[in-house]
């Protein structure tokens, strides 16, 4: 089956006066039809830029410098602006973080909805308005008919995001990119919105690229998850595998830093020392090597590409299957103790 979205060796560059920055460097992943792929990483890791690159809305001077992006098998990264515009909304939908600023404050909700509907479908005004009302009902807005004439600021945050979802989904796109859709919302509302998004997309058979820094949301909602670090792929795999048996030292650090209700409340939270490097100062070799407990000489010299590591793929030399490049024994042992198995060993079931 053709993947809904297929990204290969994507490179996004931002020319600045200090040189060219690589915001995304050689990123590859697929999203299958109907699948929810979580994209996680710290601020600045390149999550949002990936989403913007896919939908063709990179802020200049950023640009796609290399790689391929395929939607349903067809290349979309080399399309002209008009062709790309026709894809946006109709085949790829996007949701942004802050629902208040995502909606034009001077237009009524109903008008914004009908305008979007009419852009993608030939309907009468009447029919478009009916469809708008149905969409509002679908996303759970009470008294939808009356609310069509309301303005964005008359909705609460959660309701606004529902409207945003309705707007993004009204043309039934095959891929929905959700860029931090709940970060700006109250915690109590976040779960509802995520559940709504997931339900609507699975009903329509749409794939979702869920960008967030919140692992909790990913664990609940995603089928697979991809972890970004400094614009590069660190690990990608099924959610359970990545969360419970992370195979990349960075992912492992991330998971360990999440406090668990079952843990000892007096125990200090594990931290990864240091900070993610700025784009202009990415170290040679593996981007994570200065902070990695398991780094060895090769890590500082070469850049690792994703290797199969159990159920997921991890860009770490610990998983290089080539016997000529085994990591030093002590390193391999320390990693294995953490559940990060070397290539030819099966991961320990630690939970």
């Amino acid at each position: 089956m053709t993947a809904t979205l297929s990204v290969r060796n994507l490179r996004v560059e931002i020319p600045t006066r200090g040189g060219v920055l690589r915001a995304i460097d050689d990123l590859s992943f697929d999203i299958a039809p109907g699948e929810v792929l979580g994209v996680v990483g710290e601020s600045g890791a390149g999550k949002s830029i990936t989403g913007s690159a896919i939908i063709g809305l990179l802020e200049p001077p950023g640009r796609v410098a290399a790689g391929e992006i395929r939607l349903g098998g067809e290349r979309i990264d080399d399309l002209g602006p008009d062709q790309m515009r026709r894809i946006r909304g109709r085949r790829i939908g996007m949701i942004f973080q802050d629902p208040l600023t995502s909606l034009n404050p001077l237009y009524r909700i109903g008008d914004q909805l009908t305008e979007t509907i009419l852009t993608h479908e030939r309907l009468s005004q009447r029919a478009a308005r009916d469809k708008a009302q149905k969409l509002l009902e679908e996303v759970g807005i009470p008294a939808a008919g009356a609310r069509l004439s309301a303005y964005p600021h008359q909705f609460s945050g959660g309701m606004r995001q529902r409207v945003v979802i309705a707007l993004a989904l009204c043309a039934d796109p095959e891929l929905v990119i959700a860029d931090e859709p709940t970060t700006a919302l109250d915690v109590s509302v976040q779960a509802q919105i995520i559940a709504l998004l997931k339900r609507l997309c699975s009903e329509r058979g749409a794939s979702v690229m869920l960008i967030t820094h919140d692992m909790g949301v990913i664990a609940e909602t995603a089928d697979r998850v991809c972890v970004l670090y400094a614009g590069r792929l660190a690990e990608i795999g099924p959610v359970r595998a990545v969360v419970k048996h992370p195979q990349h030292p960075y992912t492992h650090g991330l998971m360990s830093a999440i406090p668990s209700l079952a843990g000892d409340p007096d125990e200090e939270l594990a931290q990864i020392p240091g900070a993610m490097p700025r784009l202009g100062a990415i170290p040679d070799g593996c981007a994570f090597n200065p902070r990695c407990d398991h780094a060895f000489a090769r890590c500082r010299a070469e850049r690792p590409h994703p290797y199969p590591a159990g159920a997921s793929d991890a860009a770490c030399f610990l998983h290089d299957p080539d016997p000529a490049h085994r990591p030093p024994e002590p390193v391999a042992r320390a990693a294995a103790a953490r559940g990060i198995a070397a290539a030819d060993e099966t991961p320990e079931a630690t939970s």
Partner: protein
Amino acid sequence: MIAFAIRRFMQALGVMLVVALISFLMFRFVGDPVNQLVGVDTSPAEREALRQALGLNDPVMIQFSRFIVKAVQMDFGISYQFKQPVAALIASRLPATLELSFVSALFALAVGVPMGVYTGLYRNTLLARGFLAISLIGVSLPTFLIGILLIFVVSVHLGWLPSFGRGETVNLGGVWTTGLLTKSGLLSLILPAITLGLFQMTLIMRLVRGEMLEVLRTDYIKFARARGLSRRAVNFGHALKNTLVPVITITGLQLGSIIAFAIITETVFQWPGMGLLFLQAVQNVDIPIMAAYLLLIAFLFVTINFIVDLLYVAVDPRIRLGEARR
């Protein structure tokens, strides 16, 4: 909404009172009103009698309230220069200034807004850079210089348009004299209107451009694009509307500025308006005219500001309809 209107009205009233106070102080205490009205050979006794008759020895507060009452009745006393009622003088010159101001404002809007939109949307084209260069010149050159240069090129060299006066005017009902109904009147209006409006036009252009650039960077524009809306819908449906809302209100405020700047244009073109009258008053220390002009301008400004504020509320639904219901 009503509460807002009342509050703004009270503020306007407050400003008017302050200006009235300044005007009164000027009127009464700068220079000596009596000395201005009589000849040098009037005896001190006669001067004192005149002072008494004019009520100049009464308590200040009483004089102030008298001043306000008279002002409301449009009685501003007698001009020192012309020995005529100030109100009548100003009234006769008002139409000239107002006509000039309105035509200038129209010119500024009609040219400034499209130029601003264009340079906001198409930032790097040659035409956009050309517009920006013109705007820089418009902002840098003093109004009078623009007037002189225009006169020099168009009137002196090319002889196309007249360079002073209003041309022939038509008297409407004894209240208003208009130059809009005669050919010479219209021709005479062109150069002064351009001179007066050029500065405003560049301001509007830069304002529209700035707003446009800001709006184009917002999330809702990005979301509109992400929804696949056409370029026209994004640029003109969304961006333009959001740009124009603050622009319209600021432009309204500029109208007052135009009326004040008319002083300069009227001087360059010998346009018989209020501004020229005021300038002569400053040169000849004709306090009654200065005071009256100040009050009138303040009244115009305050009224315009007030209307613009109401307009803003009417146009922006966030203010009109209040905050979110949970």
